[in-house]
């Protein structure tokens, strides 16, 4: 049977070039980068080479690159660290209502520490407005955090406009670019950000490695303490194989973006059009334009996302859903709710995220197979029954 991986926004396979580089390091370069002997020195060199690759990929200086253990840790180091380090300057922070939990939960924690946080609303397509942002600014605003692109619906945010305003007003600006890197151009000087987070496992690199870009001259505070690694901002013996793997992955991702992203966008559009035209009562979540090239988020209304996801998986299509039942929480995805979707639509959402391995043939298969799945679950659904009878929905 077919087995199509359609969850590249959750994580990606590790590409062979990355595995090979990592295995070489695992076998040959086990020395501690802090050791000055012949086993340690090559490890240090490997880290600095990877740092240069990462810097180049986002147009930064190598000295502005800090390796951390995940995208989550990068987000927190930027947000918790800089808010705490700069709290004497003010206690107001701004972010959006559709951030990843790595960002949202960091801000929730800061609220408990006495900071005030404005969560910017989004429109029906998941985008914040620059006007709302300007209105939210206060004299005591010290930090703004806006994701480059949304992980659920793929909406690209106006980070450059926000960045220009922050720079002008000398407010720290963090960008969660975990989903954007390798999909759309990410240039820290063009964005005018002070911090930017990215993660290895979203770009065909290893899990358990992330990067925080931190502009020179900007201050943050470590989340925990120990050795002097990564300029004391992220102590602990460095994960050399994963750092090297991330370096290889980001170099390749950025080099291939120019051809891969348009290819994915074409497949994505075909998928969206195919599903929307084949299955009644479906809708695209997020915008048509200005979305990540590999993200299709579609609601198949009147059926529940986890049931959809499981049935798709049995037919060899592995994707994800914004339904509450996937995560074990009570409410469906905070992103879909912030976009103003009804519970009915939010619960029926399916995120199909494409990647290197996705072919046009796969897309045809999905379009063909999704309809009978929807039909079957709808036949079981009392809500679909009500809808068809013209009765109110639950």
């Amino acid at each position, binding site marked *: 049977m077919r087995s199509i991986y359609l969850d590249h926004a959750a994580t990606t396979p590790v590409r062979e070039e990355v595995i090979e580089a990592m295995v070489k390091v695992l076998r040959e370069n086990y020395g501690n980068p802090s050791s000055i002997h012949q086993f340690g020195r090559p490890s240090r060199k490997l880290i600095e080479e990877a740092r240069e690759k990462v810097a180049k990929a986002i147009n930064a200086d190598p000295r502005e690159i800090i390796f951390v253990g995940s995208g989550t840790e990068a987000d927190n180091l930027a947000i918790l660290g800089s808010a705490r380090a700069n709290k004497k300057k003010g206690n107001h922070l701004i972010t959006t209502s559709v951030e990843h939990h790595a960002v949202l939960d960091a801000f929730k924690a800061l609220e408990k520490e006495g900071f005030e946080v404005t969560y910017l609303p989004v429109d029906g397509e998941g985008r914040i407005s620059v006007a709302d942002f300007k209105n939210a600014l206060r004299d005591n605003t010290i930090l703004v955090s806006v994701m480059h692109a949304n992980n659920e619906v793929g909406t690209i945010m106006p980070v450059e406009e926000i960045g220009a305003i922050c720079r002008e007003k000398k407010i720290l600006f963090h960008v969660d670019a975990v989903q954007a890197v390798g999909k759309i151009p990410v240039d820290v000087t063009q964005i005018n950000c002070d911090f930017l987070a990215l993660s290895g496992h979203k770009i065909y690199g290893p899990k358990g490695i992330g990067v925080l870009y931190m502009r020179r001259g900007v201050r943050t505070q470590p989340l925990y303490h120990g050795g002097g690694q990564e300029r004391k901002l992220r102590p602990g013996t460095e994960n050399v194989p994963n750092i090297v793997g991330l370096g290889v992955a980001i170099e390749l991702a950025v080099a291939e973006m120019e051809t891969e992203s348009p290819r994915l966008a074409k497949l994505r559009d075909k998928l969206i059009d195919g599903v929307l035209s084949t299955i009644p009562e479906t809708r695209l979540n997020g915008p048509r334009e200005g979305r990540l090239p590999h993200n299709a988020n579609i609601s198949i209304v009147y059926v*529940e996302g986890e049931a959809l996801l499981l049935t798709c998986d049995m037919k060899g299509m592995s994707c994800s859903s914004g339904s509450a*039942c996937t995560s074990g929480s009570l409410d469906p995805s905070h992103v879909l709710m912030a976009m103003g979707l009804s*519970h009915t639509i939010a619960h029926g959402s399916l995120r199909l995220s494409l990647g290197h391995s996705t072919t046009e043939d796969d897309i045809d298969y999905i379009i063909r197979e999704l309809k009978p799945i929807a039909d079957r679950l709808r036949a*079981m659904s009392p809500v679909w029954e009500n809808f068809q009878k013209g009765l109110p929905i639950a």
Partner: protein
Amino acid sequence: MYTDKVLDHFTNPRNVGEIEDASGVGEVGNMKCGDIMKMYLKINDESNVIEDVTFKTFGCGAAIATSSMSTEMIKGKSIDEALSLTNKAIADALDGLPPVKMHCSVLAEEALKAALLDYQKKSGKNLGLNDDDFEDWDAE
């Protein structure tokens, strides 16, 4: 995360559908939490035997599987037996549910009780069921 039994009942749910002239119909859950279960009972008024039972469910894998399993567990059984069916028994019959999904088995028990309450009202028999038992669900 799901047991083979859950996946079996999810993939091949038993007793899906409606009963035109049902003796009792119960619907519980709501769209907010993402699970809605509707259960239809056909009860023999003389013998108090549940002769047929069907369901329709909007919900996750566990919601569909517990609906299916609960219908199977009460089909051909007496009202008393149905009344004594607990959510734990349903979950156990499925070889267990993930902790975050236990509420689905509660929902299945409640759907059955709601259908029996409807039957109590329609038949005039006193099954000892009380509208208040469902307040929790309505409130949500």
